[in-house]
């Protein structure tokens, strides 16, 4: 096993480094994806659209998990905020979903501040997971009790005929998939920027050691809450598009048990070590799940089961996700993650300057998770 890994690593080192061209690669990917979606059959587009939706929703999870190590199960709640905002505003006030995106982001950002404060006041993966899971389970019955939000039935959007860009309604699924494709590309670009920004450095420092980060003057709680709010705002966007695609917004669509966990699963399977991790995770999981349930004859309930089985295998084999494994294999300067403040403080040569030619700092430190417990 070690020999195979060693051989792969040697091969990987010989490959050309595309790091400097990553923006170009992203643009090429979007262009190819755009036209490819147009050439797909309707059934395939439906599957890809689902993958792109989960990828966009999962990206908000991976922003938190990758940068701060925060395990938030509340992201689907913010996706639902997006869905409900667009549906409500369109039905009641005829407001375009494009504008609703901004309004939904504002609502989610405001909601996220108190939630983030309570869930992340103290470090600890488990506490955050507990609070956010309870939140996402408590929201559906509460929403179901609100008449203005359609009670337990939800909100159905009135149908416009044909293609209507301002109302975000289209005759086929392709434009929805294209919007989600652009959204994913923007998120990936955002991750690439974030990893190199000052914020990225702060979050890495906080994740490594919040005590050390606080000691050097980083506003730990404010940064945590800020990133949490940013992730919440991100999560609303796929919610808006998905509600428009389904012409529906209800709790089952966004917060049913399978919807809740699928967002999480694609994010974790993709891993957060690379910006593209979530997208790859979503495509892989949707594809595996689709083929397995086809092979099992489409028996009811087999979909969630195969999804769970594939997730268990991934969790056992690649605990840091596909991109984590990729990072372990391809990191040229081997193991050193981006040096956060915490790491510098632990360094025997305190404050030593880093060499100027560092590789791109990954969103997740390569070897840190193992120390987390």
């Amino acid at each position: 096993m070690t020999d195979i890994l060693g051989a792969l690593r040697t091969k990987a080192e010989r490959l050309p480094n595309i790091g400097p061209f990553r923006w170009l690669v992203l643009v090429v990917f979007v262009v190819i994806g755009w036209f490819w979606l147009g050439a797909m059959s309707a059934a395939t587009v439906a599957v890809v659209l689902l993958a792109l939706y989960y990828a966009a929703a999962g990206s908000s999870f991976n922003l938190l998990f990758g940068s701060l190590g925060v395990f938030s199960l509340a992201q689907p709640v913010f996706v639902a905020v997006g869905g409900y905002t667009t549906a409500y505003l369109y039905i009641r006030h005829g407001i375009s979903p494009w504008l609703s995106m901004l309004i939904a982001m504002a609502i989610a950002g405001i909601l996220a501040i108190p939630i983030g404060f309570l869930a992340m006041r103290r470090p600890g993966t488990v506490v955050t997971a507990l609070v956010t899971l309870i939140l996402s389970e408590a929201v559906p019955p509460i929403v179901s009790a609100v008449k203005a939000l359609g009670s337990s039935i939800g909100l159905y959007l009135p149908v416009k005929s044909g293609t209507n860009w301002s109302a975000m309604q289209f005759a086929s699924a392709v434009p929805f998939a294209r919007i989600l494709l652009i959204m994913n590309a923007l998120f990936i670009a955002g991750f690439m920027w974030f990893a190199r920004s000052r914020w990225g450095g702060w979050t890495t420092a906080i994740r490594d050691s919040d005590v050390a980060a606080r000691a050097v003057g980083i506003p730990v709680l404010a940064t945590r809450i800020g990133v949490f709010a940013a992730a919440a705002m991100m999560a609303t966007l796929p919610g808006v598009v998905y509600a428009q695609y389904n012409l529906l917004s209800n709790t089952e669509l966004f917060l049913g048990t399978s919807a809740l966990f699928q967002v999480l699963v694609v994010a974790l399977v993709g891993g957060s070590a690379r910006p593209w991790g979530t997208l790859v995770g979503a495509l892989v999981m949707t594809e595996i799940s689709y083929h397995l349930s086809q092979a099992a004859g489409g028996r009811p309930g087999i979909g969630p089961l195969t999804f769970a089985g594939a997730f268990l295998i991934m969790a056992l084999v690649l605990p840091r996700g596909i991109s984590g494994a990729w990072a372990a294999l391809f990191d040229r300067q081997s193991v050193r993650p981006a040096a956060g403040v915490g790491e510098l403080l632990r360094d025997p040569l305190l404050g030593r300057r880093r060499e100027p030619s560092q590789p791109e700092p990954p969103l997740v430190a390569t070897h840190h998770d193992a120390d987390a417990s």
Partner: protein
Amino acid sequence: MLFEQLLIVGLITGAVYSLVGVGFTLVLGVGKVANFAHGGFVGLGLYVALFMHNQFDLSPYATLVPATIVFLALGFGIGELFEWRARRAGEIGQLLIGLALLLLIGGSLEVLFKDNPRTLNGTTLGHIDVAGLRIDGSEIFAFAFTLVVAVGLYVTVQRTRWGRAMRAVADNPEAAGLYGVQVPVTQRAALAVSIAIAGATGVVVSPFTVLTPDVGTSYLISAFAVVILGGIGNTLGAVGAGLALGVIDSLSSGYLASYWTSLAPLLIILLVLLVRPDNGAVV
């Protein structure tokens, strides 16, 4: 009269919460494992009781002891899985395994038993009438079972050699290891016991519970709520917290709108985190 009735209903619901929380808090305290699959094993216990009842005409009480032993053995196996993963991926690996198991159990139950809600019919232990309320024997049994398990667990943890080892591991695994405590074995045993309690809980509450395949998630939520309220690793705290949550649930749904049932625990947890944030930060 209504108040007494709600109180009784609340105490019975609370007993179930306590039972689910007791095992969860044990393994969180000792093993530092937030076993997300915990609720899933309660669900599995429920369906084991249903299966034995429908196929072999066995009452849940006849199933209880063998099922608990099977769950205990299963728990050791699961512990091995967690332990093996923990060596390579730490806390996150354990969260992943737990989540994957929760989903796997829910998915399997859905495939095997279909999606529609099920109940166990014809298992009765008689009933008594208190304050104009008919209380089923199975509910009283569940309540008594909770007390026995909680007290048994408390005595084991406080008074026995094995319990001392568990407390040592919960306190400081490295130091416990240096003093000769077999840390992995102790942690695995705690996990196995918690899974056995979860399975037994499912069997015990099956006569008065509506079974659905994704019932595990809601039990997981109760376990979380109980742990935050009762303190991590505190078995008696878990019982108190469970009973309190049950009573609050029942009173809020009786006197207020029904959605308060799900809102009340959330508010309490948020309040606890606001007042005592360190209570949740033990892990």
